[in-house]
C-alpha cells in the first residue's frame, strides 16, 4: 500500500481511503454454504472430543459441526448458544489457535485443524440472519437481579437470568453496551457493527433493561444495588490502565492502547482517524498486537511492538504474533522502556535490553532509541476502585467456583473477577455460571 502522507507527528489519511477500507475488512471472511459443508466434513466427530474440553464454555463442537454437515446450521447455532450466548462474537475473536483448534486431532495429525471458529460463525450468523432467537423465558420468578457492566460477562449472565424467568437491570458505565466486544477488539475481527447487532439480538429474549452511563461508585453504589435487588452480578471489567512510571509519560501522543482501539472501533470514518508516522507499542499481549496491527493498517509507516521479556513469554498467541509480522509490524523482545523523549510532543522512546536471570528480569546497560510520533501503552489493565467491603485476590474481585464474592448475594465474573483467562469466552462462561448459581440461590434450589 503506497504511503501518501509521510508527515511526522500524528495525522490522518496516511494511505488511500480504499486501502484503509481493504485493510479493515474481515480477517476471516465468512464461509459460503459449500465451504462450510467441506469444512464441516473434515470433523471426525471425536469421542469425548478434545476441542469440547478445551472450550471454556464447553460447546458441543462435534455435534454442532455435524449439524452443519447435515444441512441444519440453525440447529448447530442452538447447540452453540445453549452454552455460549455470545457464540457469534466468540467465533470471531476467540484465540481458537490456543483453545479448540489447538487440540483438534487434525491439528495434531496434520497441522491443519478443523476451522471450528469459522464454522461456529457460519452457524450463528445463519441463525441471526434469519432473525431468530431460539430461547424463550421461563415463567416469571418475581426476582430482580442487577448486573453491573454490559460486557460479555454481564450480558451472558443477564441473558441466562432472563431465560430463567428473572427480571434483569444492567448498569453500564458507557453510552453503549458490549464492553470489550464493542470497544476493545481489533476492528478487522468484528466488522459491520456486529457487537451491537449481537447485543440487540441477545436482548430480544426480553426481560433485560440496560441503563447506560451508570458507573458503579458514581451513579450507583453496590450498597444501593444490594438494597434494591435480590442479587447483584459484577461484570464491569478492568477500567484502569497500568502506567509505565516513566518521566514524560504525560507528553502528547502517549496514550493507553485500549483508548486507541476504542477510538478506532467508534470512528465513523477510519480515514479521518489520526495515526503516527512512527508508532511504538509497549506490551506483549493481545492489546499490544491489536493496537500495533491497526496502527499499521491505518497507514503508520513504521510500527514496533516492544516487549520486556522473551517471545515465549508473550501473552499474545503465536497466530497473533505471526499476524503482526505479516502485516509489517516489527516485534522486539527483551527490551524495557527507560526514557520518553520529546519537547512537548513525543519524539523518541529509549529502551534498555533485558535478560532473565534465575527467573528475574534484569535491565542491562545497553540501550537503543526508536524514533516515535506516537506511543501506545499496552502493559495491562487493572480493576477500578471497588467498595472496601469487597474482598480482592491478586488485584481482582475474589470469587469462588460458583462466581460468588465474599458479600452475600453478590457474584462477579469476567475480567474483573479472579480466576480464568481474560478472554471473551471465559467471561461468557463465568457470567453464565454465575447466573445458574444466582438462580439456584434465589429459587432455593441450593
Amino acid at each position, binding site marked *: 500500500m503506497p504511503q501518501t502522507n509521510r508527515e511526522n507527528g500524528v495525522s490522518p489519511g496516511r494511505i488511500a481511503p480504499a486501502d484503509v477500507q481493504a485493510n479493515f475488512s474481515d480477517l476471516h471472511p465468512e464461509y459460503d454454504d459449500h465451504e462450510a459443508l*467441506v469444512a464441516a*466434513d473434515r470433523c471426525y466427530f471425536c469421542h469425548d472430543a478434545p476441542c469440547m474440553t478445551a472450550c471454556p464454555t464447553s460447546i458441543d463442537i462435534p455435534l454442532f459441526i455435524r449439524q452443519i454437515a447435515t444441512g441444519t446450521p440453525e440447529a448447530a447455532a442452538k447447540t452453540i448458544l445453549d452454552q455460549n450466548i455470545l457464540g457469534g462474537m466468540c467465533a470471531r475473536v476467540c484465540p481458537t489457535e490456543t483453545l479448540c483448534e489447538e487440540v483438534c486431532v*487434525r491439528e495434531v495429525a496434520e497441522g491443519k485443524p478443523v476451522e471450528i471458529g469459522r464454522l461456529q460463525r457460519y452457524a450463528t450468523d445463519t441463525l441471526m440472519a434469519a432473525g431468530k432467537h431460539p430461547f424463550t423465558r421461563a415463567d416469571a420468578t418475581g426476582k430482580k437481579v442487577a448486573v453491573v457492566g454490559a460486557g460479555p460477562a454481564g450480558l451472558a449472565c443477564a441473558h441466562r437470568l432472563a431465560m430463567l424467568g428473572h427480571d434483569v437491570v444492567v448498569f453500564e458505565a458507557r453510552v453503549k453496551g458490549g464492553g470489550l466486544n464493542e470497544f476493545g477488539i481489533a476492528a478487522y475481527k468484528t466488522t459491520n457493527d456486529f457487537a451491537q447487532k449481537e447485543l440487540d439480538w441477545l436482548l430480544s429474549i426480553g426481560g433485560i433493561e440496560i441503563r447506560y452511563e451508570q458507573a458503579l461508585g458514581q451513579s450507583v453504589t453496590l450498597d444501593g444495588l444490594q438494597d434494591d435487588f435480590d442479587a447483584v452480578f459484577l461484570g464491569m471489567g478492568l477500567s484502569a490502565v497500568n502506567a509505565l512510571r516513566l518521566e514524560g509519560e504525560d507528553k502528547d501522543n502517549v496514550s493507553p492502547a485500549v483508548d486507541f482501539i476504542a477510538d478506532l472501533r467508534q470512528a465513523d470514518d477510519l480515514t479521518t482517524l489520526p495515526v503516527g508516522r512512527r508508532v511504538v507499542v509497549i506490551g506483549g499481549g493481545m492489546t499490544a498486537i491489536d493496537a500495533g496491527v491497526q496502527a499499521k493498517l491505518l497507514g503508520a509507516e513504521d510500527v514496533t511492538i516492544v516487549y520486556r521479556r522473551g517471545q515465549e513469554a508473550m501473552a499474545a498467541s503465536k497466530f497473533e504474533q505471526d499476524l503482526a509480522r505479516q502485516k509489517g509490524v516489527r516485534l522486539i523482545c527483551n527490551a524495557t522502556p527507560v526514557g520518553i523523549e520529546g519537547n512537548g510532543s513525543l519524539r523518541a522512546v529509549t529502551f534498555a535490553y533485558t535478560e532473565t536471570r534465575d527467573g528475574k528480569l534484569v535491565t542491562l546497560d545497553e540501550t537503543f532509541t526508536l524514533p516515535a510520533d506516537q506511543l501506545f501503552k499496552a502493559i495491562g489493565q487493572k480493576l477500578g476502585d471497588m467498595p472496601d467491603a469487597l474482598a480482592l485476590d491478586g488485584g481482582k474481585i475474589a470469587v469462588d467456583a460458583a462466581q460468588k464474592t465474599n458479600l452475600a448475594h453478590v457474584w462477579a465474573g469476567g475480567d474483573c473477577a479472579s480466576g480464568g483467562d481474560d478472554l471473551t469466552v471465559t467471561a461468557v462462561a463465568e457470567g453464565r455460571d454465575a447466573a445458574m448459581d444466582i438462580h439456584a440461590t434465589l429459587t432455593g434450589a441450593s
Partner: protein
Amino acid sequence: MADLTSNFLGIKSPNPFWLASAPPTDKEYNVRRAFEAGWGGVVWKTLGAEGPPIVNVNGPRYGAIHGADRRLLGLNNIELITDRPLEVNLEEMTRVKKDYPDRALIASVMVPCEEDEWKRIIPRIAETGCDGFELNFGCPHGMAERGMGSAVGQVPEYIEMVTRWCKEATDLPVIVKLTPNITSILNPAQAAKDGGADAVSLINTINSITNVDLDLMAPEPTIDGKGTHGGYCGPAVKPIALNMVAEIARNPGTHGLPISGIGGVTTWRDAAEFMALGAGNVQVCTAAMTYGFKVVQEMISGLSQWMDEKGYTSIDEVVGRAVPNVTDWQYLNLNHVTKARIDQEACIKCGRCYAACEDTSHQAISMSDDRVFDVKDDECVACNLCVNVCPVEGCITMETIAPGAVDERTGKVVEKEYANWTTHPNNPTATAAE
C-alpha cells in the same frame, strides 16, 4: 512395460477399458472424442427396433448420492435406450468403426421378445462392421414396463431363448448383459451360457430411488411432482457388482464363461479388482460422466504401473487370479485368530475406535485419561470395525496370533491346523474330521 492389449472373445482393443452402453456412447461425436481420449472400446448406446424413435422425459433424468465435497458416489437414471433413429445410429457406427479399426465397437441391442424382431435387426446392425453384440437384458426402468430390458433378464428362460436367436442370426460374438435385480445372478448367467452366449457383462443398473424431495414429498429425479425408480450405478454399486462377478467366476456351471465387468469402475484399481475376480475387461460409464473421457488416461497408466510392479506382463495373467480365494463362509479357517493393534505413533486420538467398540461392539478398547487407546486382547473378537472407522489409514491393523500362543479371549491355544465350520463340534451337521 506391461502389455495392456485386450483380446476379449477375439475382439481386440488397445486396452481393457471400454465405455459401457449409456449416454456417453449415444452419438458419433461422443464416441470419436472417447477414442481420441484413449478408450479401448465402446458399447454403443442401446439400439431399438426400427420405427418411431423412443421418447425420453423432458425433465431431469438423473439423481445422485454425494459424499464429502459433493463427490459423486452414486448416480441413478431414468433415461431410455437411444432416442435417435436406428438408421442414423447405424450410419454413424459404420463411419466410426472405419476410422478407428483398432478399437472395439460393440452394438447394444434391445427389441421386443419376438424371434423375427431379433433376427431382423442383428444382421442389419452387423453391416456397420461392429465387432460384436451386447444384448441389453438389464435396464430396470421404462423399457422393462414394455417387456424388455430387465423384464427379460429376470426370466432365465427368456434369456436363453433370445440369446439362442441372436447366436443363430450372427457369427459375431454375443455378450449378454445381466440385471442385478434378481435373487441369484447364477441363474441368468447359466441361462445365457446355455443359450450360447460368448460372454456375460454385469452388472446393469440397480433399481433405486436416490432421494426424496422433502418439500415436494416426491422421489428424485422429480418430473412434475412425481418420480419413478431408476437404475443405480457409480462407485456405490461396486461391491455388489464385484460379488456377482465373483459368483459367476467361481460357480462350477459358469466358471470360464468370459465376463465383462461393469459397476462403479472409477480408477485403475477398481478395474484390477474386477479382473482379479474374473472379468476379462471392464466397462465404465459413471466415472466418464463425472469427470469426462480423460479419466481413462489414469486408468491406463495406473494399471500399467501396478502390473509392472507386480511383474504381470499381460492382462490374461491378472484375470481370475483372485477367484480361487473366494469361498463360502463355511470353509473359512476358524483357527485363524487375529487381534487389533493400534499404532500409537500414528494414532491421532480421535477416539472413534473406542466409541465404535464400546457402543456397538465388544468393549475391547480401553481409553486412558490422556486419551491413549489400547486393545484388550481378552475382549477383542477381531471384528475389524475399529480398522474401518479409524480415519488414519494403517493406524489400526489386525495381527495374526501365531499358532501355539494363547488367545486371551477364549483362553485356548491357537491351533496350527486349518479347521472350518463343517467340522466344528458346535455344528449339528458336522462331518467328523478325518
